[in-house]
C-alpha cells in the first residue's frame, strides 16, 4: 500500500517533469526559428519571383533575361544582388532605378564611366557592352529595372538610339 502510494507520486512528478521538458524544448525551438526566420523569408522571396502568367509579361522581360544570362549574370548573380566587395548589386539602387541615361552610360561604356574611384566598395571593373544592339540594350536595361524586386519605367529602343547618337564622339 505504501509502495503503491509512493509510485503514484513518482508518476505524477515524472509526468510534470516531462511536461516541463516539452515546454523547455519548445522554448529552444522557438528561439531557433526566430534566428533563421527572417533570412529564410528573404530567400523564399528572392528565389521564387512572383508568378505572373507568361502572356502578361511584356516582351522585354523574356528577351532581356536572355541577354542578362549571357553577359550580366556571372558577376551580378541570378538574384541581382552582386557580390559583396566585388560586384555591385542591381537591387534598389539609384544607378539602376534612377536616371535612364546614367544606366545606359554604364551598360554601353562600362562601370568606369560612372563608378571610377578608389573608394568604391566594389573591386571589379565592368566592361562596356556597346557591341550589343539597341534592342538588346533596351531589353536588358528594362529587365533589370523590373526584376529582383525592382520596379521602374522600361527603357525603349528609341531612348537607347537617341542616347547613342547624343553621345557619339
Amino acid at each position, binding site marked *: 500500500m505504501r509502495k503503491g502510494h509512493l509510485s503514484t507520486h513518482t508518476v505524477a512528478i515524472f509526468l510534470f517533469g516531462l511536461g516541463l521538458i516539452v515546454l523547455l524544448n519548445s522554448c529552444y525551438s522557438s528561439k531557433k526559428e526566430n534566428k533563421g526566420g527572417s533570412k529564410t523569408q528573404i530567400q523564399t522571396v528572392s528565389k521564387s519571383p512572383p508568378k505572373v502568367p507568361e502572356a502578361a509579361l511584356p516582351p522585354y522581360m523574356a528577351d532581356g533575361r536572355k541577354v542578362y544570362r549571357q553577359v550580366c549574370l556571372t558577376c551580378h548573380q541570378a538574384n541581382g544582388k552582386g557580390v559583396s566587395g566585388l560586384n555591385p548589386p542591381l537591387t534598389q539602387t539609384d544607378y539602376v532605378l534612377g536616371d535612364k541615361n546614367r544606366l545606359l552610360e554604364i551598360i554601353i561604356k562600362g562601370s568606369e564611366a560612372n563608378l571610377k574611384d578608389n573608394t568604391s566598395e566594389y*573591386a571589379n571593373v565592368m566592361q562596356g557592352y556597346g557591341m550589343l544592339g539597341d534592342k538588346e540594350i533596351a531589353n536588358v536595361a528594362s529587365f533589370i529595372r523590373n526584376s529582383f524586386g525592382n520596379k521602374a519605367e522600361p527603357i525603349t529602343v528609341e531612348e537607347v538610339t537617341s542616347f547613342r547618337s547624343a553621345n557619339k564622339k
Partner: protein
Amino acid sequence: MSKTSHKLFDLRAKWLFFFIVILLFSGCKEKQENSVKEPVLKISPDNEGIIVPDGFGVMKVADSLGAPRHIAVNSKGGVYLKLRKPIDGEGIIYLEDEDGDGIADSKKGFADYGGTGMYLDKNYLYASSDEEIFRYKLNAEGEVTEPNSPDTLVTKLVSYRTHATKSFTMDGDGNIYVNIGAYSNACQETDRTLGSPGVMPCAILDSAGGIWQFRSDKFKQSYGEGKRYATGLRNVVGLDWNYKLNKLVVTQHGRDQLNTLYPDLYDMETSAKLPAETMYIINEGDDAGWPYIYYDQFQNKKILSPEYGGDGKKTAGENAIDPIATFPAHMAPNDLLFYTGDMFPEEYKNGAFIAFHGSWNRAPEKQKGFLVAFVPFNDGKPSGEWQIFADGFAGIEEVYSPSEANHRPTGLAQGPDGSLYVSDDAGGTLFRIVYNKK
C-alpha cells in the same frame, strides 16, 4: 508512521519540483549564471550549425563584428581581428574572455584603417591596410599598449580596386612576406573585357602579382627597400610560414570569367570548374606563371591563357612552379594555417587548414566553398587529398549566390590551447572549433 513519511515525501516532491523549475529557467536563458567555479567552454549544442568531424565542437565566440578578415590569438586567449572597414573609426577589434567559458566578455577597438592582414608574435601585433603594414608593441600579457602610435614598417604599396588587400606572414627570422595582388583578372589591355588581348610582357608584375619581402625591424620601407620574393601570383590571400620546411606556403585565387571573356573556347560549365585554386611552396625567385598560364586540375597541366593565344589545351609556363595541392575552381582560399597545436588528434599536426570564402564565379552553376578544408601533411608535403573539415557556414543547402550565405570563412588562427578560430566577414561572427572527445 505512514502519515509522517507521506508528509516528508510531499516536502521532498515540492523541493524537487522547485528545483526542476529553476533548472528549466536557467536552461531557457541565453547565459548561464553559474559558471563561476569551473571555467567550462560553452560549446553550442548544435555546433552553431557547423558540421565538424566526430569529437569536435564549435562555439560562437562573438558576433556582430562587422567584416572581420584575418585574426590572431595571443598567449592568454585574447583575439585580435582586422576589419575590412573600420566601425566608428576602429579597424582592429580585441576580444577577451574573462570567465573562461569561451564567449567574449569584452571588446575594445583601435586603428582607424580597414584592411585584411594580421600577424602576432611575442613582442608585436602586425596589421595591414591596403597600402601599409604597421606594428603595435605588446606587453607581457600580449596586449597592445599604445594603440594610437604604431610603427609604420611598410608603406606606399600599390592599391587599386582589384585585389587590393595586403595579406602577409612572417618567418620568425625578422622577414615579412606580403602579397601584392595583381590589379587585374588576367592582365588584359582592358581588364575583364571581351576581346581585349593580354599585355606582353605584363607590366603589372613590376609592382604587383607576387610576394614581396620586407624586414620587420625597419621603418617606412617600400619597393626600393623590399625585394620581389616571388612573382606570377595573381592574388594570394592565404599565406603561412611552414616551420617543418622552413618555407613560405601560399594559396592563390585563380582567374575568373573564362566563359564570359572567351565564350567560343569555354562553356559556362567548364568556366565554373576551371581553373584550380592552387597551393604553392614558394622559394625565393619562384614564378607561378600568372597571367600567361592557369592550372587545369583535370589535365594536371599549366595551360596557356586564352589572352595569350591559348585554346584550353596548349600548355605553357615550363619554368613556372607547379602547385603542391589543387582545389575546385573559384572557392577563394582566404587563409592558410599550419596546425601546430596539441589539442586536435595526431593526424592534424602540421597539416594545413584553409578557409574558403566561397565562390561567385561559378554562376549560373551552384556556388562552392563556404567551408574550412584540411590537407594532411607529412615531411612538409601533402600526404593525402584535401578534405572538408568544417562545413555548413552558408547555413543553406544550395548556394546560388554568395549573398545568400550566412557566414563566409575568411581568417584562421590557433589559440594557445590548440583551438582553431575562424572569422566570418559576411555574418560578422567569430567561431572557435575545439576537440572535446572524452
